[in-house]
């Protein structure tokens, strides 16, 4: 069981790397689906270990909202962008980004070390660092991508990382909170998707990195 959870964690971090290093938008979206499924898998394993029913419910909500609803929503709202602009422009080259992401994984391990020293189960020592690493790498992905959809995927990766840490840290968080948090992610996707549509209608492109007109210099 511990190894299965560790496997889910290892593959999770691999998908996070993939989201940073993937060139195609539709590929990143598919990786996000796999990532959410892995998150649900980890929640199931933890639910079985701690015999807590509502972790199973959390897993179910994750699969429903993040693996089905959000990709479907994004695919339909932004199908024009996904098919018109296949490749993602980046600020740094992909190998450099991958190296920085690997560095961030190491950083996150050092960051959570004081927390783990207070008494860590085997599950905690896998989920917590990988969750925080997902957080950091998602944030990095946002800064380094210039397109709308990849930035949104960065935000969603950060939330996934936070949830992965959360299912292990707080297995007994009241169900309402988990439900609302999942709902919240859905609203994020909806809001950002609609905003991207407006941007494309008004500005003509979703290359949001080029929108930098609000500065003091001009």
């Amino acid at each position, binding site marked *: 069981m511990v*190894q*299965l959870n*560790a*496997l889910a*964690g*290892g*593959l999770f*971090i*691999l998908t996070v*790397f993939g989201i940073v*290093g993937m060139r195609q938008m539709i590929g990143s979206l598919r990786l996000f689906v796999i990532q959410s499924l892995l998150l649900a898998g980890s929640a199931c394993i933890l639910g079985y270990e701690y015999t807590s029913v509502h972790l199973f419910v959390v897993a179910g909500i994750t699969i429903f909202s993040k693996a089905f609803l959000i990709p479907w929503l994004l695919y339909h709202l932004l199908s024009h962008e996904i098919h018109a602009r296949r490749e993602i422009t980046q600020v740094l080259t*992909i*190998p450099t980004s*991958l*190296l920085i*992401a*690997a560095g961030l*994984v*190491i950083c996150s*391990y050092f960051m959570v070390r004081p927390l783990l020293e207070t008494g860590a189960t085997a599950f905690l*020592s*896998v989920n917590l*660092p990988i969750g925080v690493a997902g957080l950091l790498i998602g944030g990095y992905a946002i800064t380094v991508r210039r397109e709308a959809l990849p930035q949104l995927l960065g935000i969603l990766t950060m939330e996934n990382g936070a949830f992965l840490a959360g299912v292990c840290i707080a297995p007994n968080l009241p169900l309402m909170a988990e439900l609302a948090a999942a709902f919240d992610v859905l609203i994020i996707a909806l809001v950002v998707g609609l905003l991207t549509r407006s941007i494309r209608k008004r500005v003509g492109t979703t290359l949001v990195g080029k929108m930098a007109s609000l500065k003091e210099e001009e």
Partner: protein
Amino acid sequence: MTQKIVFNIMQVLVVMAFAPLIKGVLDRLKELVQSKKGPSIFQPYRDIWKLFHKDEAVSEESSWVFRFTPYMVFVAPIFVTLLIPVLTDYPLFFAFMGDMLAGGSILALGGFFATLAAIDTGNPYGPMGASRTRMVGFLAEPVFMIVFFTVSFVAGSTIPYIVQQAWITPIANFFEPSHVLVMLAFLMLIIAENGRIPVDNPSGHFELAMIDESKGLEYSGRGAALMKWGGCMKFFVLLCIFLNVLVCPWGLASTGSFRDLLLAIPLILLKMLILVFILVIIESSLSKLRLFRISEFMGAAFVTSVVAVVIQLIEM
């Protein structure tokens, strides 16, 4: 004692005998997946037989390197076979002669000579392919190193037999994240080192785009046969290391009886068949990468192996 030497020699004979078969199966399967009929699985044997009976034409401008290389390329995998577990899971006579790093450098020696020979003849396509092979090679080296470090770190030794015992005998260890990531990284490495899609197209005849095939371009007759056979054996050896050390060490002979050894041969061929099937699926679903995207591919392999080693170190 003599039994161990005999088994060792049997290992070498098995590798020499069945390497072209694996190559033939791979080619046939690829064609079958693409709904074509494909050549017979014994075709590489016939090709090697035919080439041995042909005359050699050697360029006058070439030096001793050109003539020496086919033997080098043929012999290098054989030396590596002495070191790795092919049929047995206990160390044989020559097992402690060198560890995995030594095996890696012997294979690299073969590649080194092949590269030199490609430049030796003065054919313009040779150096082009050789430089690309070296690029893929040096990008693959860090991945090799880190994969070896990871597996040796767990086992406490770099001898493949000992690594195999320690790494995977508790079945639960199979699902360790560092193990899965190391498997993935090594698979990407096999694809890169043997010139399969997505790194290189092995069935292409277009010299401008060749990476790995270019090393055998200038040879004819016996030289060509040896290069071909040596290439098949290198593929077989890498697959052996992958399967027997990392992925699936069960089915190897654990006792000293001759019958067990003979039983191990079809088992290893079966394991190889499954892996070849996976490789064929990968080959048929991806397209060849553009040249400078290969560094991204190897970068992804490198990062996978680094994450594996980090997870292994931190979770100890």
